[in-house]
């Protein structure tokens, strides 16, 4: 009977449903996108490896941006700091340490060139960060110490220079120059390895990079003697806090720092970054979910409106039903069922629409080369359906009550 009543008012029922459809679809899409974004962000952070600490020069709030962001050049972190941190006595839980500097540069080979960023680092990099070589080797300890003129290419750089030429990059000599050195011919470096494609991490394309020994980057590309970062891989997540303390005390001692106010470096914890990003994405999801919830409430008010209009329009029918024996409870049930059915059907359509749109968004994100997961949680569906039916019942309650309390004679006489 409920369904028949709704079908007899198809257009109106559909429009009433629309509010609920949009609300439910909204909730599902937003929760799905939120989960997808979270997995993307966390994936970006964790891609380089877990249990990482990063030491940056200059004092800054470990939860805020590093000092360099503000244009400050801090020169206090040097290679000997990295060396001392490698000591298993001083920092027992450090599995690997690498020092690094970076810059923007151009790579030339024969008549081809490509702009990329170069990273000057040492052999420790291979142990700190997760990656595999597609050919050759990474910069080894002897190459590093001797300041050998070697370079390791990211896959994209290798492709840009060698794809289609049939030439094996290993052994070839490229010229690398700093982007700001417009007149220089560049530093000739022999390619010793190419890294396999590994996508982006921290929203930076890890394949569009080249790696040169630290001393080459410092001395011949950048003309500096300090470090921009020291990365440390800790043996276990449990020892991260201990290691932060160890690193801090070692560096304080080396930099002759007596009070915490004078500390000239910052130890950043990847886990903190994960937490921060999670907090941000959670907050965003919550915000957007509440927007969708508002859409649901608006849909509910639509139901309230339509149900009130329906009750007014069907006053005579209610009178008749009561005259032929319907009790107040029966009338109330009838109208509640109708409101519930509208929202339930609307909710179902909303779920289908929401899942389809979430899926299309995931496909689009993958097409745009993001590591996007299509996530639909059962809880989001239950939430959406629960809220929509609840909306229907809550906003259907008043009109239903109103209908059930109509006096049969007044209702019958209603024009």
């Amino acid at each position, binding site marked *: *009977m409920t369904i*028949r009543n709704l079908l*007899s008012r198809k257009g109106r029922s559909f429009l009433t449903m629309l509010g609920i459809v949009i609300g439910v679809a909204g909730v599902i899409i937003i929760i799905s996108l939120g989960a997808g974004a979270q997995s993307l962000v966390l994936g970006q952070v964790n891609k380089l490896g877990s249990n990482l600490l990063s030491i940056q020069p200059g004092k800054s709030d470990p939860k805020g941006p590093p000092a360099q962001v503000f244009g400050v050049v801090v020169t206090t972190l040097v290679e000997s700091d990295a060396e001392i941190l490698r000591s298993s006595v001083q920092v027992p839980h450090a599995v690997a340490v690498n020092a690094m500097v970076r810059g923007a540069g151009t790579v030339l080979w024969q008549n081809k060139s490509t702009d990329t960023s170069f990273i000057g680092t040492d052999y420790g990099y291979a142990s700190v960060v997760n990656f595999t070589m597609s050919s050759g080797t990474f910069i080894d300890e002897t190459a590093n110490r001797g300041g050998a003129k070697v370079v390791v290419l990211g896959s994209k750089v290798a492709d840009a220079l060698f794809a289609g030429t049939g030439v094996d990059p290993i052994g070839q000599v490229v010229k690398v120059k700093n982007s700001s050195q417009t007149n220089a011919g560049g530093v000739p470096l022999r390619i010793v390895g190419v890294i396999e494609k590994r996508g982006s991490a921290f929203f930076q394309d890890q394949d569009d990079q080249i790696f040169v020994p630290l001393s080459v980057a410092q001395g011949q590309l950048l003309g500096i003697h300090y470090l921009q970062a020291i990365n440390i891989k800790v043996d276990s997540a449990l020892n991260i806090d201990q290691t932060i303390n160890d690193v801090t005390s070692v560096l304080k001692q080396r930099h002759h720092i007596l009070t915490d106010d004078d500390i000239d470096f910052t130890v950043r914890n990847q886990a903190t970054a994960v937490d921060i990003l999670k907090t941000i994405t959670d907050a965003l999801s919550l915000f957007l979910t509440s927007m969708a919830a508002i859409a649901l409430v608006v849909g509910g008010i639509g139901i309230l409106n339509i149900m009130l209009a329906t009750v007014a329009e069907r006053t*005579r*029918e209610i*009178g*008749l*039903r*009561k*005259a*032929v*024996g*319907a*009790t*107040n*409870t*029966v009338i109330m049930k009838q109208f509640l069922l109708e409101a519930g059915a509208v929202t339930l059907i609307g909710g179902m359509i909303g779920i289908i629409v929401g899942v389809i749109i979430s899926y299309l968004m995931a496909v689009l994100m993958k097409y745009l080369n993001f590591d996007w997961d299509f996530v639909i949680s059962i809880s989001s569906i239950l939430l959406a359906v629960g809220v929509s039916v609840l909306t229907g019942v809550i906003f259907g309650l008043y009109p239903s009550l109103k209908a059930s309390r109509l006096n*049969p*004679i007044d209702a*019958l006489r209603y024009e």
Partner: protein
Amino acid sequence: MPLIKIENLTKDYESGGIVTSVLRGVDFSMEQGEFVAIMGPSGSGKSTLMHILSFLDKSTSGLYEFEGQDTKDFDKDYLAKLRNERIGFVFQSFNLLARTTVLDNVKLPLLYSKKKDHDNLSKKALADVGLSHRLDYFTNQISGGEKQRVAIARALVCDPAVIFADEPTGNLDSKSGNAVLEILQKLNDRGHTIILVTHEMDTANHAKRIIYIKDGMIVGDEKVLKRTIAKGDGELKK
């Protein structure tokens, strides 16, 4: 035991602090199987009386016994049950459900009863009023006379103790009206008790007894001596 017995029944309406007495002490009783017309001009209180008798409204004071029971303390749900099982209604304006078939309209009271086999009961009631060929028509596809016959079938379907017909011919042409009255007479012949509310003498004369009401009081109560027997196309299979 009379089917209906009322004593000194009154009904007051209050609006804006002004009390209007619509019924001012009405007494009468009627037996099972009677065909009574309640007649009076508009505003006389005849409709109010019918509403009270059919449990759509409550009196202000006075006694109303239905089938030997005092109705004073009946609660809303019990009144709904009585309307469903013991009372049938035929209204001037038909009050059929729009966008609904003839058959489903007749089924309506059964939805609220404990009776089973709704289809057959409804079809039988429609056969009684000669509408077996209209079962699946929608109510906007049939004539006024047919609509009122659907309404009679709906009043019949729960096999009530009494059928109330409130100006059943008021919205019909004389031919259709005649057919409706013929059906009511034949139902009465079969033993159904009928209370017909009308302001037209011609219509009232189809009943066996007329109660005249004016200004909220009964001013006459007599047997119909020259009863009109309706002869139309109103079918009623024996």
